[in-house]
């Protein structure tokens, strides 16, 4: 513990702008108390489900000419019919800077300009879920959870990144790949005695001490741009530090009772998405976290549907139609069916005072890619009452409204104190009931 103030000093001098969280060892114990006390009113939750390669144009989007509640569900959304009054599809949104037709998730929640930094051909900024996590995640075991597909080499159209989440510095945030990893992250109990856990924490801190010492030494004499590069390392250490501090709060607090059985068989594709949806519901029900992103598999989804078309080729169905179009439509249907099942589950999950998870959660289901290389009218479905969204509508917003306006609306609606996000120009008033 005695190293800690020193390390704070190191970090703040190394990275200048990096703000460190208050740590319990410095006498700030409020979080620890919060960890054991039950959270008062049902908390707001945000879930982002990203499906990579977009959808089939004519098959998935409702008619732009029938905005409002009285619209006909197109075939691609037909599996959602039983929930029609409980979700809103927003049409006309995009990320204006996006120029990469193969990146369905990289900038979906960030709205960043890839070329914003001279001299770099890749730049990203913080994602909406991480903004939410910084405020909604203070009282849960995990500030946020990032789930990914389990496929190793599949081509699911998500683009670069370790998950859909990007931290405040625009660096990728890692996550759990596949249901088994996600399950263990949530429910695997740490059976180590408390004293031993404390010793392990101390040991981990001694590791951080050592590498920080090394980083400091290396930092001497570096040019400004190289120091900035090394700051990523400091930032990584700071993240671990923050996590250790949080771990310390949670020492002795038992893991929640698992609300579903441990996945035994490796699953992929359709089954994997279904199982991951179960785990997401479980994570919310146990209040392990309030912010979740999930990059869904597409390649293995196709495999599980016995579709042999390459996922990338599928999204270029316009030219030849035939089996690519068929694959694209069957993908839409499978994704909609799975999503309908997810809505069933959060509607059935009861919360205090006769409410359900659905009443306190906002679920976004979409992608930065519409179809092919198309990046306009990004597919966006919003469900749940967590952010006061007007549900049951085919909401047609002015063409090329920033996606970030939608994210801002949802963040504010979920009680996050934020004024703008990405390239947002304001909130979408029509989206709010």
């Amino acid at each position: 513990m005695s190293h800690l103030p020193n390390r704070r000093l190191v970090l703040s001098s190394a990275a200048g702008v990096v703000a460190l969280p208050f740590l319990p060892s410095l006498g700030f114990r409020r979080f620890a108390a919060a960890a054991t006390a039950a959270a008062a009113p049902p908390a707001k939750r945000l879930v982002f489900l990203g499906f990579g390669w977009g959808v089939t144009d004519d098959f998935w989007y409702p008619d732009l000419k029938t905005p409002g509640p009285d619209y006909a569900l197109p075939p691609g959304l037909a599996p959602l019919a039983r929930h029609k009054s409980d979700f809103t599809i927003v049409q006309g949104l995009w990320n204006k800077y996006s120029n990469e037709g193969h990146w369905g998730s990289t900038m979906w929640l960030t709205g960043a300009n890839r070329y914003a930094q001279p001299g770099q051909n890749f730049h990203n900024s913080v994602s909406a879920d991480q903004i939410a996590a910084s405020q909604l995640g203070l009282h849960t075991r995990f500030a946020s959870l990032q789930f990914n597909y389990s496929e190793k080499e599949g081509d699911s159209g998500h683009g670069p990144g370790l998950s859909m989440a990007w931290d405040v510095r625009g660096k990728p945030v890692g996550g759990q790949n596949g249901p088994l990893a996600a399950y263990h992250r949530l429910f695997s109990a740490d059976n180590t005695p408390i004293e031993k856990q404390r010793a392990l924490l101390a040991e981990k801190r001694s590791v951080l001490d050592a590498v920080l010492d090394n980083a400091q030494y290396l930092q001497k004499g570096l040019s400004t741009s190289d120091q900035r590069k090394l700051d990523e390392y400091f930032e990584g250490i700071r993240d671990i530090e923050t996590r250790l501090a949080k771990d310390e709060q949670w020492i002795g607090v038992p893991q929640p009772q698992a609300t579903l059985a441990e996945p035994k068989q490796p699953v992929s594709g359709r089954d994997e998405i279904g199982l991951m949806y179960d785990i997401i519901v479980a994570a919310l029900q146990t209040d392990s976290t309030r912010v979740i992103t999930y990059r869904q598999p597409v390649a293995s989804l196709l495999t599980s549907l016995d579709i042999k078309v390459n996922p990338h080729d599928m999204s270029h169905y316009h030219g030849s139609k035939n089996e690519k179009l068929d694959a694209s439509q069957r993908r839409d249907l499978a994704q909609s069916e799975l999503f309908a099942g997810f809505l069933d589950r959060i509607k059935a999950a009861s919360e205090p005072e006769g409410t359900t998870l659905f009443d306190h959660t906002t679920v976004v289901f979409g992608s930065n890619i519409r179809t092919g290389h198309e990046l306009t009218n990004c597919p966006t479905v919003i469900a749940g009452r967590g952010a006061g969204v007007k549900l049951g509508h085919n909401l047609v917003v002015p063409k090329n409204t920033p996606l970030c306006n939608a994210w801002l609306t949802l963040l504010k609606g979920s009680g996050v104190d934020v004024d703008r996000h990405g390239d947002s120009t304001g909130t979408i008033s029509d989206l709010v009931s």
Partner: protein
Amino acid sequence: MVVMRVSAAHAAVWFYAAFLTATAGGAAPSVHLPDTHRSVLATHCLKCHGAEDAEGNVRLDDLPYEITSVETAERWQKVLNVLNSGAMPPEDEPPLPAAAKADFVDDLAQTMVAARRSLADQRGTITMRRLNRREYRNTLRELLGAEINVAELPADTGNGSFDTVGSNLFMSSNQFEQYQALGREAIEEALARHSARSVVQRHRYEAEQAVRKLVKVINEEIEQRDRARRWVAAVDAAAARPENATVVAEIRKQAKNDAEFRRSWERISGAPSPVEYGFGEPFIAVVGNAVDKANASLNPYFLPYHEDALTPPGIDTGAYLANQTVHPAILDNGYVSTVVPHHWQPGDFIVRFRVAGNEQATPERRFIEFGIHPRFGQVLSTHEVTGTLERPQVIEVPITLTRKHTDTGDRTLFIREKNSIDSNELASRRYNESKKKNGIGPEYTIWVDWLEIERMPAKETAPPGVAILDGMLDDKKVPSRSQIEATIEAFSQSAFRGTLPPPSFVGKLMAVYDHRLAAGDKHSAALKETLSVVLAAPMFLYLAEPAVDGQPRPLTQHELASRLSYFLWGAPPDQELRNLAASGKLTEPAVLAAQAERLLDDPRSKGFLEPFVYQWLGLHRLDFFEVNRTKFPEFDNSTRLAAKHEIYETVGHLLRTNGSLRDLLAADYVVVNNVLARHYGLDGVAGDHFRPVPLPADSPRGGFLGMTAFHLMGGNGDETSPVERGAWVLRKMLDDPPPPAPANVPAIARLAGKAVTPAERLRMHQEEPQCASCHRRIDPIGLGLENFDAIGRWRTTDSYKAEGSKDLKTWTIEPAGALFGGPAFADFHELRAVIAERPDAFVRGFSRALVEYALGRPCGFSDEPLLDAMVAQGKTKNFPVRELIQALVASDPFHTK
């Protein structure tokens, strides 16, 4: 140097970024859109987007034609976007004339590419970089001699630049933990290998053991058939009883055949259940299935084929490779395999197999594949069987086994016939086709005597990181505290490529060690854990070169050693390089050039060849597609593997022999192995290794454009894609990359479901001026390559059948065309000649890639003088590949931080 773009109308083909004015002195280059387009904007745009009340608040009248800022670039990008998407001019305004629009979009798109390069120019500044994934793996191998699976680390590729570009190599908290975990694993692996270094181990599997298993299966099949026959006899006997006559007649009326008749056995009084004859258990729970099983057992589909395996000579001492028949859990006759004993420690091994082909072994049935994990594993190598039953041959393959090879599957070595079971579907098709012909199944052609594995003796000297730990990990004789400190320091110095760690770092590591001891670790565990921290420390992970802002300085000797070895090996400097650096001699031009030669001659230069070629040529596309095996049954896994290796082997051949880069444009030889020679129809190529093979004068092979891998990338494994091929040629061979495919271009929906030739489809592309702007340059090249099908075979016709249509449309390929604004060509050979006449452009593109890869930063406009110099120096000697590398190594930028 001044490079000016002539007006678009008179444009010749130009070979590197246009619209650029740069001076050799390195003054800031400027990018500007040709003024000729002012009138288009004035006529069609300014009415609404002028100074007064600009529509949508978009003003174009004050938009500078010279692009010097991101803001200006973005405003122009918006103009390009709305032109591409057809959103502007709006419907009620007159459209832009097609030709003017195509030229304008073309120039604007090129300008945006140039602007992006200009604005991204780091002016020689190299961002400090961490080791990328493969360098991390190679560095651990050099330090510890351990082979580590680094798949969990980010690949560091896929962001459009080389994996050496520091500004794109990120770090996160997850990664830090992965580094420590991998470091821990590497230390354990190294110690395990070291402990087994003098162990002698050999394990042999005699293939005749498989024959015993086969005989058992055959006996079961016969016994099962007999049981089925007895059941049939019993059912028939019951059916013959007079009291059953009515019901039997009724069943007969409905049943198509005897088998179906017996499905209704229950209605026949006195007929026994098939379950009583052993067709119920253990797999068959439903009685209906039991009937089917009994019916099927009457005529065991595979029995003749199985029995046939017992007839050829040699089965008392070996076994024949078969086409996989039943489930491999019952009989794994598709391969001969053996499990490496589980107690064997990791290390390097030789696998040997003794094999022979019999007289049925036609040339295409003489190949076998070796791999690990028969059910899921990849093919590791392919071998031609030239031995005979009288004189079998022994084939040797080196392999490495690690601590990760724990599952039985991952320890199972196998050999199988090439193209015998790339998928279950293909295997059964192959089987059925043969069975139709001869009533039995595919001929047995390859006999296996045995399969064995033997540990290779370790190198005489232990890897540096392991040598340091010698005697330091004994829990019975714990070293003194000062010895432990010295060990940590020496290990860190070795890991940090010779740089001594600060004492404070060693002190902090001692604290880690003490914490581990306090947490209950033994000395050895605590020390190993402590050393794993070294392998996650910044001085290990980053190649740091201290500098003062804005003041370039020459590299130090040690920095130069690292830059050179990570360039040409992807690995840390060895002792010789470090010694030269320490003695201050490495910067002497002759010494440095000699070292570069030495590094290129070393096998470790594979650590340059493969990653560089892979990224330079964009080979990731090779793994994008499944080949349509119904259409191309011969394009098996081995051929695919060989096609990929042809590229590496060809560039590797040039690198070894210092051959001319021009050979990649056109050559009178190919570098192939026996598998690929068969694919190309070249006779007389024996042996599994790649080697240069001369070509007949009229051959379309030789150079990239003749390679199967190139054509595979330029298609989807089924159909060709002239656009992909044309764009690749522009990007990689002519150094004239087309702008990235624009977002939001409307698709040509009216083509859906129509059978059109690629040429027709592309002509339609060019109807839209915004498409024509790029496609008029891409498409002629792509169409000129249409004589190669999707797997690179030569063809003269092509055909297409639209979905749901019965008509097969066939057409003759017409490759004739002309480069945009350039020379015409009548066929592929002329097209190749036109391209081959432009080696300067190709070498310039190669040099640009080399600079970016070696220096780890984007190659910007300020590097044009360097590229000029490299091309000029290469040109004097007809572009030998090492000349280019040496020119870069000797250049100032290579020596400068």
